[in-house]
């Protein structure tokens, strides 16, 4: 469904993404992990068209290389941000409707927007000003707005960051439901290995912009190169 071929991005001297290729299949939950600064978020920013880059990206059989972000959103690629983004001027319901109005094929769909609001569990806060939501609320809202665009694929950037155990459990259920009930393909960048091993079918590890390995999570987490460069010896011992 999403094919990334020989993706390279340089910020001046820094090579943030280095000749990276991978493919995400329809219906999958696809994980991406790696140390801080490995280039994970940059990969998202390239896929969503925020920067120019070398290489080619295909989505749903079409070349989407070089399209601007808003067009890519309309094609059916939705995303969340590592640091939650909100619209302080809008309330919860309005924010979700923005996704529907501008991002969904066929425009504003009030029924679908309300369903999504229930789906992410924000129906109680519908008229709440988004600046007043807590961190979990903001994340759910970001996911809700993204889902309101009726995406084919949803890319989550460290959704668990800053969450406690029960919130993580809560979000994991939500992510699984998005994948299974709504049939949305998911890419997830995450640091918590437990989350990745439980949720994902394929796991891509990158470091300094390059792929270290890419396979089933149980194989990846036992790969000596991954243990050495990312997970560390303590992880191996814990197991």
């Amino acid at each position, binding site marked *: 469904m999403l094919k990334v071929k020989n993706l390279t991005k340089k910020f001046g001297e820094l090579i943030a993404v280095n000749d990276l290729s991978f493919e995400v299949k329809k219906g999958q939950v696809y994980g991406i992990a790696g140390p801080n600064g490995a280039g994970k978020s940059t990969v998202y920013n390239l896929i*969503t068209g*925020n920067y120019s880059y070398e290489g080619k990206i295909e989505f749903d059989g079409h070349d989407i290389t070089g399209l601007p972000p*808003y067009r890519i959103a309309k094609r059916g690629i939705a995303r969340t941000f590592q640091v939650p983004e909100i*619209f302080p001027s809008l309330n919860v319901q309005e924010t979700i409707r923005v996704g529907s109005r*501008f*991002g969904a094929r066929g425009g504003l769909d009030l029924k679908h927007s309300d369903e999504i609001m229930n789906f992410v569990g924000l129906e109680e806060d519908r008229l709440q000003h988004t600046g007043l939501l807590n961190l979990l609320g903001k994340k759910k809202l970001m996911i809700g707005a993204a889902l309101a*665009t009726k995406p084919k694929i949803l890319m989550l950037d460290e959704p668990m960051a800053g969450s406690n155990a029960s919130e993580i459990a809560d979000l994991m259920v939500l992510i699984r439901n998005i994948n299974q009930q709504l049939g949305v393909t998911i890419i997830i960048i995450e640091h918590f290995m437990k989350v990745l091993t439980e949720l994902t079918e394929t796991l891509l590890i990158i470091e300094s912009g390059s792929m270290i390995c890419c396979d089933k999570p149980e194989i990846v987490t036992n790969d000596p190169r991954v243990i050495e460069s990312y997970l560390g010896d303590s992880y191996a011992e814990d197991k």
Partner: protein
Amino acid sequence: MSLKHMILILCGFYCVMGIMPLFFGDTDYIMNILIMILIWAVVASCWDVIMGFAGIFSFGQVAFYVIGAYSSAILSVSLDIPPVFSIMMAGVITGLFGVLVGLPCLRLAGPYVALVTFAVHMTLVPFLRGPLGRAIGSGGSQGILTIPPIKLFGLAFSSEQLVPFFYLTFSLTIICTLVLVLVIKSYWGTAFLALKDSENFAASLGISAFKYKLMVFALTSFITGLFGALYAHYVGMLSTKMLSMDVFTILMIMMVIGGIGKYPGVVVGAVITVTLSQLLAPLGMYRPLIMGAIVVVLVLFLRDGIISPIIGLLSSRRKVGLVEKSLKVSSKGK
């Protein structure tokens, strides 16, 4: 602000304005103030839409106003185009100019947008006074002195007869205000707000910054140009004095008094500022001093402008009403 409050305030304002000539129709001094209030209310509203709503720090508002004024003046004086059409054309020309200025601003961060747009303002004076300006009929440093009145349905509208001109301005004001309210409250307005709050998030949800930012430039400069043109035919003469800091400051004061992004606060700001500036005119050089002091005091004590306490009043009255209702209900229960 809720649509209800917005409409309540605007209706109140324009109803009062609409009957003013009945009382002051014979007093030219007041009629002139009323007309200027109408004109500035719209120009300031446009500024609030682009700056307050869309979050684009455009400082070209006076420049657009002057471009509109000069365009219509030149078209009607040099090319003999009837003012009704030249005003329309001036709006379109200014709108196109707005898009042209907007284009380089799309990729710039706030402070740089302010610089670029103000640079347009700064270059207008030498342009209009210089040989290029004179070549297109700007009249150089002398300006244009013989701008014809607006002729419509066999009537002439100009500063000779203030009441008809007032109602002409009033009609155009109502139309443009309606357009602005519709835009603010439509999905366009939502797109402006979303882009202002977070351009990345907005784009990830399918909003084209390019489209909506250019749209806001086009719309606000079109309407501003229209009113600049109207002003030109009202006073009958133009000079580059319009580009002085004085005019710019007055517009800024309207915004500060009304509250940035608190539309229609800026309309109230226009009423207060235009009136004050006329009343203080005899004080000569002390006027800017007093106006400046007012701005400082307002920024310190009423940061959201004068509109917030007004809305507070409107809502508290409603709350009192609700309390009364609930009291009635509970007493019925007994």
